[in-house]
């Protein structure tokens, strides 16, 4: 009897959760479906859900008309570039703060977090002028620099919380065995730190890929990553739903897949380790 009730309850929960889940996901599903329609089918009323003539021509059209691949590469270079550069700068810092903390470490960390509180618009004007005067406007390297800076606090915080979990006794044991600092780092610490570094890398690629303040304001035709490329569809041209959908699907697919693999890191990285 009790089992019966709980199975019934489980069924009700399942139906409810799936309904809500599909509703929340629906705009993405709809974009995906529309990308395979012709423009006429895309605005047909009543809308065609699955039974239409599937076509992939929109994808080729988007590539040939607006050089999608160039913008895709811009996104790749900017998000990977800024994340790797950020890691390069952050790993030693997080390392030092986790393994030889001082009284001020907590304050330094809080201060770094506070730099994220500054609204980007507060420094939009000087950044735009600096970029214009140094020729960094509309270049990938300029975007890499800015995105490195804005994500650096998150990278450091995230690495710090991971490094903090590496037990100090292991270090001491290695030292007792007479390991040099270099050996200690290469053979003992690095293997234990790699999962944390990988998670940080993943989350920051997602954040940089989707960043849409600086990429929109500091890039134009040449260095525009996908965020800015898609924004160009906000003009009346955006009424070509099928092409908009094809471009959107290609822009979000890589990150959707990466993101699904990193749900846990998402929580940890974005809450600065406050929720595990």
């Amino acid at each position: 009897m009790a089992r019966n009730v709980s199975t019934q309850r489980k069924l009700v929960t399942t139906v409810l959760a799936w309904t809500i889940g599909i509703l929340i996901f629906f705009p993405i599903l709809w974009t995906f479906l529309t990308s395979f329609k012709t423009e006429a089918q895309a605005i047909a009323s009543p809308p065609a859900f699955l039974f239409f003539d599937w076509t992939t021509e929109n994808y080729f059209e988007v590539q040939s008309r607006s050089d999608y691949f160039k913008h895709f590469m811009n996104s790749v270079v900017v998000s990977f570039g800024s994340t790797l550069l950020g890691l390069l700068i952050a790993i030693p810092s997080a390392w030092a703060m986790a393994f030889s903390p001082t009284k001020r470490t907590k304050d330094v960390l809080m201060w770094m977090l506070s730099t994220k509180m500054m609204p980007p618009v507060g420094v939009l004007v000087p950044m735009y002028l600096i970029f214009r005067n140094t020729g960094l406007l509309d270049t990938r390297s300029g975007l890499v620099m800015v995105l490195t800076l804005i994500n650096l606090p998150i990278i450091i915080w995230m690495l710090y919380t991971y490094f903090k979990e590496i037990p100090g006794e292991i270090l001491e044991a290695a030292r007792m065995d007479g390991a040099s600092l270099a050996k200690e780092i290469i053979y003992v610490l690095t293997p234990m730190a790699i999962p944390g570094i990988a998670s940080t890398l993943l989350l920051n690629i997602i954040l940089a890929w989707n960043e849409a303040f600086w990429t929109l304001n500091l890039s134009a035709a040449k260095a525009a990553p996908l965020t800015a490329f898609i924004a160009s569809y906000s003009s009346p041209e955006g009424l070509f739903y099928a092409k908009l959908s094809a471009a959107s699907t290609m822009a979000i697919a890589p990150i959707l897949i990466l993101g699904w693999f990193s749900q846990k890191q998402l929580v940890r990285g974005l809450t600065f380790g406050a929720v595990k």
Partner: protein
Amino acid sequence: MGDAMATLHTRSAARLMIAPSVLLLLAWMIVPLALTIYFSLLRYNLLMPGMEEFAGLTNYTYFLTDPAFFQAVFNTLAIVLGVLFITVVGGIGLALLLDQPMFGQGIVRILVIAPFLIMPTVAALVWKNMFMNPVNGLFAWLAKLVGLQPFDFLANAPLFSIILIVAWQWLPFATLILLTALQSLDEEQKEAAQMDGAGALSRFIYLVLPHLSRAITVVILIQTIFLLSVFAEILVTTNGGPGTQSTTLTFLVYAQALLQFDVGGASAGGIIAVILANIVAFFLMRMIGKTLEA
């Protein structure tokens, strides 16, 4: 003796390792901000190069007495509070639901998280064109289906529509964090409360909600930081309009700077945005400082 040497070594090594990040962030905080303050005191328009002159606080009085400014502050707060309300309440509900035993939980989680991974420009354009468009959008079709007039969301309720789009993007974040916190709630505690005859409601109020308070604080903090600077969603949907009905502080400064080329006025606006954000941040930092120590 050797030990003391070693610590001294590691300590200076540690300082050296921390230095690059601290210096970079310090420069990032100080240099552009100092320039913004400097520009905000000038009469400086990019269309009239070489005409810069000291203007005192004129830019500030001009910006602060602009009716668009009050509208922008109101809109900014409306977006922050509206989205926070929807995502926190909806997030708690969804987290409670997803915490129940069910079939295919992993897949539902994946479906629910997805909107958070979508870049803001894509999210906003998909909603604007394929859902909210009064002629070809799905909402218009649904309205006609039940015999209603299609509603032009972005023209007639621009702020509400933007809140809806942004809330869709952030609901997964709140859900994910609250669910993570919920799953760390001791199963035994829940069972004990049930044994004691506590009903579902009182279990929620006296057991679950207090347990979630820290996670809710974190959700509010993080989302506020990002929501104060919502930009792309406005740029590609309403462009701040109609009129200034959906102009936020961020968007107002952007328009002043990059559309009207008024460096001085935009800088003054930027400084005001920084001050307002700092007031909010002050309270939030105290909150997170407390939860981090706890």
